[in-house]
C-alpha cells in the first residue's frame, strides 16, 4: 500500500496504490472509483477490501478521493460531478504511470459508476468497466438519499433541514448547483462503454438496473461491448448492510475481472 499524490497544484488528489501481489502481475490495472460524499464513509471498508482482494489476485489497483472529498484537497461544497469525472481521468493516468501497466479497467461503486462511465464516454480507454450497484439516474439517486436522510433523522432530537434548498444532505454540504448537476446524470442516455466488456455487479434487481441491462444488451447485439450481468443476492438483501459487509459481491467482481 502506497499513498500517491497527484492532480494539479490547486487540485491535489490523494490516492492509495496497491501493487500487484504474486509473480505474474496482470496486464490491466484496476482503478476504483468510489461514491459521492454522502456514501463515502459507509462504503469505505468495502472499497478497501476490494482493493486488497484485487491486488492479491495480481492486479495493480488504485483507489482515490475526488476533489472536495476524503483526504483530497478542496472544501466539500467545491466538489461536483463535472470535476469528479476529470478526477477519474487524472487518477487513471496516475495509475498507469505508477504501475507501468499498459491497459486499464475501472470499477465504479454507486455514483462512482456513473462518473467512470462518463469518463469512458469522453475518451478514457477502459478494457472492462464494472458498474457496482450503479447510480443509473441521478434524480432517483438524490431522491433515495433524501428518503434515507428522512428515516435516519427521525432518530434525531433536532433533525437538520435536508430538503431541497437547505444546502446540505446526509452530513455534507450539497449546494443547489451540485444537486442540479447530480440529477442530470443518466446512464440510460450516456451508455457505459468499454473496449471489451461492461460488467454489472448488483445485489438486487432494481427496475433501473434492469433498464440499463436491457440497453446494454441491445448495444452488445449491435457490436458494442459485451455485457456481463452479475446478480449476487446478499444475505441481508434489501438493505445496504449486507452489500457493504459481505465478500460475495467482491469475489464476483474479482472473478469477472479475471476472466480473459
Amino acid at each position, binding site marked *: *500500500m*502506497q*499513498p500517491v*499524490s497527484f492532480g494539479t497544484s490547486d487540485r*491535489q488528489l*490523494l490516492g*492509495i496504490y496497491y501493487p500487484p501481489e504474486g509473480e505474474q502481475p496482470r496486464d490491466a490495472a484496476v482503478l476504483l472509483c468510489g461514491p459521492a*460524499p454522502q456514501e*463515502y*464513509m*459507509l462504503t*469505505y*471498508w468495502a472499497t*478497501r477490501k476490494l482493493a486488497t482482494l484485487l491486488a492479491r489476485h495480481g492486479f495493480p489497483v488504485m483507489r482515490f478521493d475526488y476533489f472536495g*472529498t*476524503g*483526504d483530497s*484537497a478542496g472544501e*466539500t461544497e467545491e466538489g461536483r460531478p463535472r470535476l469528479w469525472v476529470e478526477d477519474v481521468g487524472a487518477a487513471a493516468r496516475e495509475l498507469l504511470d505508477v504501475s507501468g501497466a499498459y491497459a486499464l479497467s475501472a470499477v465504479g461503486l454507486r455514483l462512482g459508476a456513473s462518473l467512470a462511465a462518463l469518463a469512458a464516454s469522453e475518451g478514457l480507454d477502459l478494457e472492462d468497466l464494472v458498474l457496482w450497484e450503479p447510480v443509473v439516474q441521478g434524480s432517483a439517486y438524490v431522491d*433515495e438519499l433524501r*428518503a*434515507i436522510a*428522512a*428515516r*435516519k*433523522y*427521525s*432518530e*434525531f*432530537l*433536532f*433533525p*437538520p433541514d435536508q430538503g431541497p434548498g437547505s*444546502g*446540505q444532505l*446526509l*452530513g*455534507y*454540504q450539497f449546494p443547489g448547483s451540485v444537486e442540479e448537476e447530480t440529477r442530470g446524470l443518466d446512464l440510460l442516455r450516456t451508455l457505459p462503454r468499454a473496449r471489451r466488456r461492461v460488467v454489472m455487479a448488483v445485489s438486487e434487481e432494481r427496475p433501473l438496473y434492469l433498464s440499463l441491462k436491457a440497453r446494454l444488451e441491445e448495444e452488445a447485439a449491435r457490436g458494442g461491448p459485451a455485457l456481463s450481468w452479475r446478480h449476487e443476492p446478499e444475505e441481508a438483501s434489501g*438493505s*445496504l*448492510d449486507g452489500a*457493504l*459487509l459481505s465478500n460475495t459481491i467482491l469475489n464476483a467482481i474479482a472473478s469477472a475481472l479475471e476472466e480473459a
Partner: protein
Amino acid sequence: MRERAFVFGAHANLFGVLAEPDPSDAMAGSPAVLLANMGVNHHVGSNRLWVDLSRRLARMGFHVLRFDLSGLGDSLQRPGAHGDLERAVLDLREAMDFVSQKGGPQTFVVMGLCSGADSAHAVTVADPRVTGAVYIDGFVWRTPGFWLRYWTSRKLEAARWRRYLRRRAARQRGGPREAGEAREIYQREMPTPEQFRASLGALLGRGTAVLAIYTGGLMDYAYEGQIREMVGELSRHPLFATDYFPRADHLFTDVGEHEKLLVSLCSWMKGRAGRARAEEASA
C-alpha cells in the same frame, strides 16, 4: 498549509495524513494535534470532521496528524497480542514519535470522539508528552441530576415528543435504510466514575488541559451542567473546560453544528497555544 500522507510506525503499519502549517504561520512552542479514529470510522472522520479540523488548525499554525489506529481504516494490524487500549496507546505514541521526527513539536493535544475518547484518555494518562486532551461525547454516567430531569423536564420537552412521532411514522413508512443506522455493536471499556475522576485529577495536577464536549445526541447526557456534577470540584480547575451542543447529534451531522464544533475546538487550541507561549517565555 500542506498535507502529505505517510505510512509510519515501528512496524510500518500505520497510515496517516500530516497537515503542516506554512513556516511563516507555525507557532513556536505550540503542541501538535493527533486525531485518530471515531469508533471504526477511518481517519477522514464522520462528515469529514477530522479533515476540516486538520486544515483549519494547520492554517492557524498547528501541526496535525490524522491517522488510523492499527487494524482500522488504512492502517494494518500491529503484530503481537494486545488489548484494544494497550494497542491504541502504542499506536498513538508511535504517532507522536513520527510527528516529532518530521520536525514537528514535542508536545501534543489528543482529541477523540465517542470511543475515540477512550484511547485519547489512555494515552494522555500514559504519556507526559500529551499536554492537552479533548473528549467529545466521551465519558459519561448518569448522575442524580440526570435522573431528576429524565423523569421530569425531559418528559415535557416538545422536541422529544416530535421525535417520538417522527420515529413512529418512519417505522410505519419503511423505505431505505442507511447501514450506519445499526446500533453500535462493540463494547466500550468505560472507566468507573471513581477511576475517571482520579485520572482526571492527576492529569490536571500535572498541567494537562482537558476539554470535555457533549452533545444533545448522547443519550446519557441530559443537561449542560452534568459534567460538573460528574467530576465535582475538578470542574473548577483552570485547566478544565467544557462545551455543550444541545442541538447537535453525536456526529455533528448538521453542517451548522459541524461548523460550531470547529470554531469551539479552534478557539480552545488558540488558548492552548497562548498558554504554551507564556510558559515558554517564563521558563
